[in-house]
């Protein structure tokens, strides 16, 4: 139970960074921290105390494995997170070219 709570605190740190920072790159970093926290929460739900990794071995007699379904879902989520981070960085570079700054309060005022 306390492990879930620590994971949610990590999520809230990322949320604070998205809500309160002025630089676009800091907002992208905050979104990255939110992604890590959500993936971690998924894998924490499927953990089984005293279980094994979900790979069959040659001389195995008892099947006592952790839950493999959350691991399958998180595996694709990690690579998709990388692609969306690259997309966000591309948009940030274009904004810098057009407006000359990374500051979001100034970008709202200019109409380019």
């Amino acid at each position, binding site marked *: 139970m306390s492990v879930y709570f*620590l994971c949610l605190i990590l999520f*809230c740190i990322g949320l604070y960074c998205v809500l309160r920072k002025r630089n676009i*790159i800091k907002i992208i970093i905050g979104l990255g921290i939110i992604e890590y926290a959500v993936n971690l929460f998924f*894998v924490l739900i499927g953990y089984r105390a005293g279980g094994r*990794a979900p790979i069959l071995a040659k001389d195995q007699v008892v099947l006592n494995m952790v839950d*493999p379904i959350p691991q399958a879902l998180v595996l694709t989520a990690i690579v*998709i997170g990388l692609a969306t981070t690259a997309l966000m960085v591309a948009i940030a570079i274009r904004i810098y070219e057009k407006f000359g700054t990374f500051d979001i309060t100034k970008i709202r005022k200019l109409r380019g």
Partner: protein
Amino acid sequence: MELHLLLLFMIFAAVAAVEIKDLLSSVIAVGAVGLGLSMVFLVLKAPDLAITQLVVEILCLIILIRATIKKDLPLIRDGRWFFNTASTFLFIAAFLLFAYFALKELPSFGYPIMRVAKEYIAQGLQKTGATNLVASIILDFRGYDTLGEATVLFTAVMGVLAIMRRVGRIK
């Protein structure tokens, strides 16, 4: 026990990433968070995820360092600074309160209800012939999700190539 220590290390590195003014140092701190996450995946008995998270973290760091050209801007304490910060903390406190009530309904840590996974574990080797159960789930039992993921990746790559296209730009 080591799970709690690794999570505390990740929280510490995340606080450092959020608060440091220099952009290059905060990107390196995010790299430390990702590395800690890879070790947590290893403690939670998920070797596929640990390998994938490690290499994806390295590529993400290289791409992020490219964007940290200029320095970070300081937080201006103009008119509505106090109201903004107080409302943010109020919102986060309300979120944590509701999360506490929701977390009480979950099964306790370490004893999941594996209703569907029992079937996959018991019949996975016989039905697909693969000994890596996670690979047999993402490519055989749940192939639709992998098809959707391939589509999302394709769209993201097309989006990046379309945004950064330059038609005859002179230096």
